C-alpha cells in the first residue's frame, strides 16, 4: 500500500518536474524582437514593443505593453529582465520574464511579468503575443492584429543564435527566472 501511495504521489511530482524543465535558456542564446498589437478580450487594442535575449552573462531586453481597454490605457514598462526561455514544444516562441512597473487608473505599482512572443513567419500575421502579470492580469497568447495570415498587427522576429552573447552560468531554472509565473 505504501508503495502504491509513493507511486501515486510520485507521478504528479514527476509531471510537475517535467513541466518545470520544459522551459530553459536556449544555448547558444538567440534574440527575439517585435512590435505590434493584439486585440484583447474587451475588444480593445493592446500595443506592445519588446525584445529579449542574453548579454554579458545576464539577460537582456525590454518590454512595453499598453492596453487600451481603459482610458488612459494601462501600461507595463519593464525595469529588469530576469529570464529568457524557450520551450521545445514551441520552437518559434520565446518567453521574456522580468520585473516592471504598471501604471493603471492613476496608480503605479510593481509587478513581475512573463511575455510570450512567437515568430511564425513573414510578414507576421501569424505571429503571436501574450503577457501574464503577477497581479493576475493576462492577455493569453494570440495572433497579432485580426486573426489570419493577412491580419496585420505588427511583426515578431526570432533571430539566429549568437554564441558571443552569453546568459548566466549556470543557467537558472524556470522558477528562478519567472518566479512561478506561467506562460500567458
Amino acid at each position: 500500500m505504501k508503495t502504491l501511495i509513493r507511486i501515486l504521489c510520485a507521478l504528479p511530482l514527476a509531471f510537475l518536474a517535467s513541466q518545470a524543465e520544459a522551459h530553459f535558456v536556449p544555448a547558444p542564446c538567440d534574440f527575439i524582437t517585435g512590435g505590434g498589437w493584439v486585440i484583447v478580450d474587451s475588444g480593445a487594442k493592446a500595443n506592445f514593443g519588446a525584445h529579449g535575449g542574453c548579454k554579458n552573462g545576464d539577460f537582456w531586453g525590454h518590454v512595453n505593453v499598453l492596453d487600451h481597454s481603459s482610458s488612459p490605457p494601462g501600461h507595463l514598462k519593464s525595469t529588469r529582465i530576469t529570464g529568457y526561455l524557450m520551450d521545445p514544444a514551441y520552437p518559434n516562441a520565446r518567453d521574456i520574464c522580468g520585473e516592471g512597473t504598471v501604471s493603471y487608473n492613476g496608480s503605479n505599482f510593481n509587478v513581475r511579468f512573463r511575455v510570450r512572443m512567437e515568430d511564425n513567419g513573414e510578414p507576421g500575421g501569424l505571429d503571436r503575443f501574450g503577457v501574464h502579470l503577477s497581479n493576475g492580469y493576462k492577455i493569453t497568447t494570440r495572433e497579432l492584429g485580426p486573426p489570419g495570415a493577412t491580419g496585420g498587427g505588427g511583426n515578431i522576429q526570432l533571430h539566429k543564435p549568437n554564441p558571443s552573447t552569453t546568459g548566466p552560468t549556470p543557467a537558472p531554472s524556470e522558477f528562478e527566472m519567472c518566479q512561478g509565473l506561467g506562460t500567458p
Partner: protein
Amino acid sequence: MLLRWRIAAGAAALAAACMAPGLAQAQLGGLVGGILPGGGGSSGSTQAAGVTAVVAGVVTSLANSGTVSDPSQPVGTGQTVASIPGLVSAEALHSAAMTWTDQAASQASLSNLALTVAGTGITADFLGSEAVAGATRTGGSAIEGLTIGGVAVTPTGVANQLISLPGLSVILNEQTQTASGIVVNALRVRTLDGLTDVAVATARAGI
C-alpha cells in the same frame, strides 16, 4: 523579410493625386543625405530608433537603441509613451539592434503615431521597420492605418514611395543602400524648406 501593408480600406483621392510610387532612390537627391537616417552616419553602423527629428537644426531622438559596437553587445530600448511636444507622439516604441560575425540586424516599431508637420497631420496605427545586412542586404516596413491630412493612404509596398504635398515631402518605406548595409525608414517626412525632417521607425544594419 517583413513587408506588409495592411491598411484600412478607403483610399485615396489624396493618394491617387499625390503618389509617385517607386521613385528611384537616386531621384531623392539630398533627401537621403544629411543628419537623418537614410544617408548619414557611418556605413558600418547597426542601430534602430523609434523617431529621429531635426527641427531647425535641433536633433531629437526617441527610443534610440544606440549603435552596436561588438557582436557580444546587442543594444535596445523602449518607451511606453513618448513625444516631442508640438511635433509627434507615439506609444510602445521599441528599437533593437544586434550583430553577428557575418550579419547585422535591427528593428524599430511604434504604435499610435500622431505627427504634425507644417500643419499636416499624419497618423498611423503601427509603423515598423527591419534591416538585415550580411551576404545580402534586405529591409522592409510595415505601415498600418496610415492617414495623411485625415485621408487614409494605402502604401503600394514599393520602396521609396513618394507622396508630394504642398510644402511637404512624405516617403513611405524609405530604403537606402549604403556601401556596407541598408537603412530603412518606415516613414520619412520633410518640409521642402529643409527646416523639419522626421524619420519614423528607423532600422539600420551595416557590416
